[in-house]
């Protein structure tokens, strides 16, 4: 599979360059075409993984242990598919979203191309060399123009980089497969510090409580397609790396500390939901919901001994990715149509924009973890693993998190279903925006019926 693996990085780089040279109009078309091809490649790769379980590829002319080793397994194939799918939807969305005179439009396409190339590269790299790529989210900050976001990503990357340097200093390699056997022996303080630094850096980047402060303002204030990309994909990339490090490198050393990310995750679920419940602005509500939903992912660390925990992680990543992209897309429509950003200003929207409200509601069903959505199955698997491990606290947090999510989702729906006291002007919105939001939300619900295909990619589990 070397061609498809390389293609997933090269194609977005190509259309990013093209878009920069050709300008936004044709650049958008290039992005669209490129993403269609990438989607095909990712699908092909997933099918190959399904048959052979994993594909190891050497790329870049350097072999392991010094070079960049590429590997695709069930987890990374899923991440790749999700990235291309959401990328494609949001590119369609963005083409309709940015007006012809929008200054953001000029740099949007090249930056999105770089971002997607970076994410893809991250998911196929089987080693710490992802260091050069973990800055992937960095492009988005120029679009998002949020200083706090820049600071958080740079700090996170710096921590991570420092950790990688220490590891390289100690062992002279950065490949997972070469490092893993070395790490089972007695480890020096420097290596433990390296592990700690890398994990801390990634926790900042994945906005785990108490490092979450940068996320809501950054995601809440960026333009809608960027918010959606950041919330649905970029934060997951950092989590993906944490999971890789945890499982592939530090499994033995980290196991006794598993309660720590779980505890922080539980706090994130409760605190993030609470902030979403009290948020005044619609996009802040959606952004705080991301903090809460990422918390679920960290709950699995004490449960990783059971097979269902990994399945729960994948379901939650995919369900939340689709639903959050849908919810931001819907929020973007509501904000542009009502020309304001307050939750309280949404009265009567179910009448004006029924499709968008339906999209918001379906995405909400997934976030609340109600059946038959993929989010429900993620929750089911998570609770099942927690019961099996006797972790009652996690059961309680997951159940409570669902109820809190219902509070903030229905906060929006209640307003939308209320009759507006006075007729307010509603700006026309391109139908494409509404349909993209609806399609993403529908996918997050209907995926619940095809969970077997997705989870089939995971067996026999993550190698390592």
């Amino acid at each position, binding site marked *: 599979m070397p061609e498809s693996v390389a293609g997933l990085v090269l194609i977005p780089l190509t259309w990013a360059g093209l878009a920069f040279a050709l300008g936004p109009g044709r650049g958008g078309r290039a992005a669209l075409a490129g993403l269609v091809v990438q989607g095909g490649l990712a699908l092909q790769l997933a099918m190959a993984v399904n048959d052979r379980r994993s594909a190891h590829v050497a790329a870049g002319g350097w072999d392991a242990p010094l070079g960049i080793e590429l590997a695709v397994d069930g987890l990374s194939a899923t991440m790749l598919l999700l990235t291309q799918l959401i990328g494609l939807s949001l590119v369609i969305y963005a083409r309709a979203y940015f007006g012809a005179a929008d200054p953001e439009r000029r740099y949007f396409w090249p930056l999105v191309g770089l971002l997607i190339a970076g994410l893809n590269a991250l998911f196929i790299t089987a080693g710490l060399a992802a260091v050069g790529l973990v800055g992937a989210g960095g492009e988005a900050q120029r679009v998002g123009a949020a200083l706090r976001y820049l600071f958080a990503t740079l700090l996170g990357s710096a921590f991570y980089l420092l950790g990688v340097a220490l590891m390289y200093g100690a062992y002279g390699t950065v490949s997972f497969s070469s490092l893993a056997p070395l790490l089972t022996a007695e480890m020096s303080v420097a290596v433990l510090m390296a592990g700690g630094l890398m994990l801390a850096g990634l926790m900042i980047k994945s906005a785990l409580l108490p490092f979450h402060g940068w996320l809501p303002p950054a995601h809440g204030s960026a333009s809608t397609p960027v918010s959606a990309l950041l919330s649905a994909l970029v934060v997951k990339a950092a989590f993906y790396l944490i999971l890789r490090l945890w499982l592939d490198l530090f499994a033995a050393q980290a196991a006794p500390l598993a309660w720590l990310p779980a505890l922080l995750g539980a706090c994130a679920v409760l605190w993030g939901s609470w902030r979403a419940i009290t948020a005044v602005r619609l996009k802040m509500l959606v952004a705080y919901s991301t903090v809460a939903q990422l918390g679920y992912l960290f709950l699995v660390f004490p449960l990783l001994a059971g097979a269902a925990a990994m399945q729960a992680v994948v379901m939650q990543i995919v369900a939340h990715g689709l639903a959050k992209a849908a919810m931001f897309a819907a929020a973007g429509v509501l904000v542009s149509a009502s020309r304001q950003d307050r939750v309280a200003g949404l009265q009567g929207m179910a009448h004006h924009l029924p499709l968008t409200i339906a999209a918001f509601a379906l995405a909400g*069903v997934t976030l609340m973890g109600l059946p*038959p959505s993929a989010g429900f199955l993620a929750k089911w698997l998570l609770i099942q693993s927690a019961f*099996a491990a006797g972790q009652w606290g996690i059961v309680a947090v997951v*159940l409570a998190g669902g109820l809190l999510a219902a509070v903030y989702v*229905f906060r929006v729906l209640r307003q939308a279903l209320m*009759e507006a006291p006075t007729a307010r002007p509603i700006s026309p919105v391109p139908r494409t925006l509404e349909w993209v939001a609806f399609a993403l939300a529908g996918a997050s619900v209907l995926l619940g019926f095809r*969970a077997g295909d997705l*989870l089939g990619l995971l067996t026999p589990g993550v190698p390592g």
Partner: protein
Amino acid sequence: MSEWLPLAVLASSLLPGIAIFLLHEDSVRVRSSLNVFGACTKLLLVGILLAGVRAGQDYEVRYAVLPGVDLALKADALGLLFITLSAVLWLFTTLYAIGYLENAPHRSRFFGFFSLCVTATMGIAMAANLFTFFVFYELLTLSTFPLVVHRGTAKAVRGGTIYLAYTLVGGTVLLAGIMWLHNLLGHTEFARGGITAGLSADHVPQLKIIFVLLIAGVGVKAAIVPLHGWLPQAMVAPAPVSALLHAVAVVKAGAFGVVRVVYEVFGAEFSESLGLLTPLAIAAALTILWGSLRALGQNDLKKRLAYSTVSQVSYITLGVALFGPVGTIGGLVHLVHQGLMKVTLFFCAGNFAETLGVHKVSELDGGGRRMPLTAVAFTIAALGMMGAPLTAGAVSKEWLIAGAIEADLQWAVWVLWASSLLNAAYFLPILWRLWARRAPNAWPDERIAARHWQETHWLLLLPPLATALATLGAGLFADHPLSPLSWAQLIAGQEYPGRASP
């Protein structure tokens, strides 16, 4: 064997529902045709199912959602009791709603969600395990919410919020119980005689907690006191919603859940041996009395009916909690009988409100002269609720009292008698006002003028007359082999195989 039939029963309301969502607001004829076509198709399919199940045929369909977790539907005698009731009443309520909502806004949304609710109800009735039950149980919650807040007023939204708060918390508690049970057993398939009896004795304390979680979870929708607070608040919904959903589908989904949990998860014998049935009977008895007492004080007609529902639905729970086949028959037959009677009462309440603008009991004076047919239907149903002879209600009460005697629970007999008296105390004054008092000079808001025999729109008139007739029919022909009573006897024979029902 026949896999498609349960699916077709779901599809006959799901597909029209989805189509209706896409319709333009003004395509009244297409929408009405779709509705009626769906309802008639469903009735036909249910008829085929009934014949098949009587002949001993199995209908089951499964779909693996996760490893070891199946979405599974089956049509058995117990499920069909609920399905038939809902399918018949869906047709009448659809006709009623078409008349009721003529020229009202957001009709596509209304009928779309209405169809989804019916689909969810069918799924609840056919669920073959707790997982599937939960899926449709939550779907029912979600699809009812837009109907409760349909009018979009602040009051409606408040009622809807209270409804959601109760039902979503109930759903979460139910999920906790289901997952716990799943953890112990590895599955949650319903089976006659229960599935938990095989667990070792050290699991008994856990099983007791699970029983409480499951019953509390379904008890919210069954409006068991103190979990009933949502029901009177949900009466802000339009009349067809109150009639079908809050008198039949939603509360019955809860009561039906109690039946499944007691008979097919824990098993009647095992529940009894754990000492769980008596507390359940006490909770039901308290609900019966409390609901009736609160109904006495309500001047708003729909709220009085709502508290009456709180009380009457717990007859079903009481019947289930009375260990023995006779009580079971009483509870199950009341599931159907209460549905027929209560839907009639809500149709009539809607007619008074829509035609004359009468919402309060105190405004009903002389209503029988202005709207004789509606008032006759109301009278039949109200007498049925009191358990008057010749009505369906009499059959229910007779079997329930016999069941209480069989189970040797003398206090339950007293509760049932006291409830009948209370029923009379809150229904007879209404009948008195309807028939014996003089009409006022002007009604509060007369919107539909009388023409010949049509005291109101004919679509509003026919459904309550039909269900009132059914109330009489179920009472008069209780011994007929196709009556609800005969069907309840068939189910009780299956749940208590060792003990022939008298």
